[in-house]
């Protein structure tokens, strides 16, 4: 999957389009417990991957999420 499509999926997930790869997740009110569940669903549907809760806890930036999308 190309980067543009991954960004589109993140925009859908977070319902915002103003972020960069360096954006800190702690600074995004949209990144909450429900968004984390939506991330798990997205990883399952789009990548056929069962997301690891520990990995999610360790996400610090948007780039961390993008790196996991494979």
């Amino acid at each position: 999957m190309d980067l543009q499509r991954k960004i589109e999926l993140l925009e859908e997930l977070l319902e915002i389009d103003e972020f960069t790869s360096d954006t800190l997740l702690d600074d995004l009110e949209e990144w909450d417990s429900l968004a984390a569940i939506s991330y798990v669903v997205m990883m399952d549907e789009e990548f056929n991957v069962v997301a690891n809760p520990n990995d999610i806890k360790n996400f610090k930036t948007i780039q961390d999420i993008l790196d996991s999308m494979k």
Partner: protein
Amino acid sequence: MFNLKDKKILVMGASGYIGKQIAITLSKMGAKLVLSGKNEEALNEILLGLEGTGHFIAPFNVEDIDKTANFIKSIVSLDKNKLFGLVYCTGIFPIRPLKNTKTDFLNNVMLINFYSFIEIVRCFSDKRICKENASIVSLSSIAATNGDKGQLSYSASKAAMDSSIIVMAKELSQKNIKINSIKLAALLPDEINFDILPLAIQESINQMKTGPITNKSVSNHVAYLLSDYSGNVTGNCFNVQGYLK
């Protein structure tokens, strides 16, 4: 009277008996309406009867559920304004006993009365579609908890709607969106002679000590739930039946 001045509100099922009156009432309160339903001709006729300007129609068949996201996006992109409110009046009320309630039939009722409701709320509640403090009101029925013979599919679809309200209210409160339903008992339509109504409905209306429920009174309930007057009210399914049981 509640002020809904310049609030952009989508009315689903606007060509129906209740939806039409809701549209008229909300327009008198200053709302900017988007009327939706299957019948474009009927929507245009209702559009002509609205007060104020800035209203438009957006015909849509909720059975095309896969097209819902694009439909909702198109309503925002049309005038570049996000939505403030959603009123879901779409619904069918088939009477069919258990014996004839087969899967295809049940699926169709659930599709129109429930699945499409969830899909429209899902798309509406995206922060890029609706404003902060947005409000959602759906029309339910006391049949959700006390359906009569022949109302199996209808009762089940409304029960599904009502049980979804509390869950969605909890999730949507994080976005400052409120959601409520109104559980109506039998309505007394203006132009229908009371004596020709089914006996069960006549009995229900006769029990209404606060007077019969009309589409105008329902419209005022909807306006209240859309307005700032109901600021902290969310996750409720309001019984409107005119009597206590």
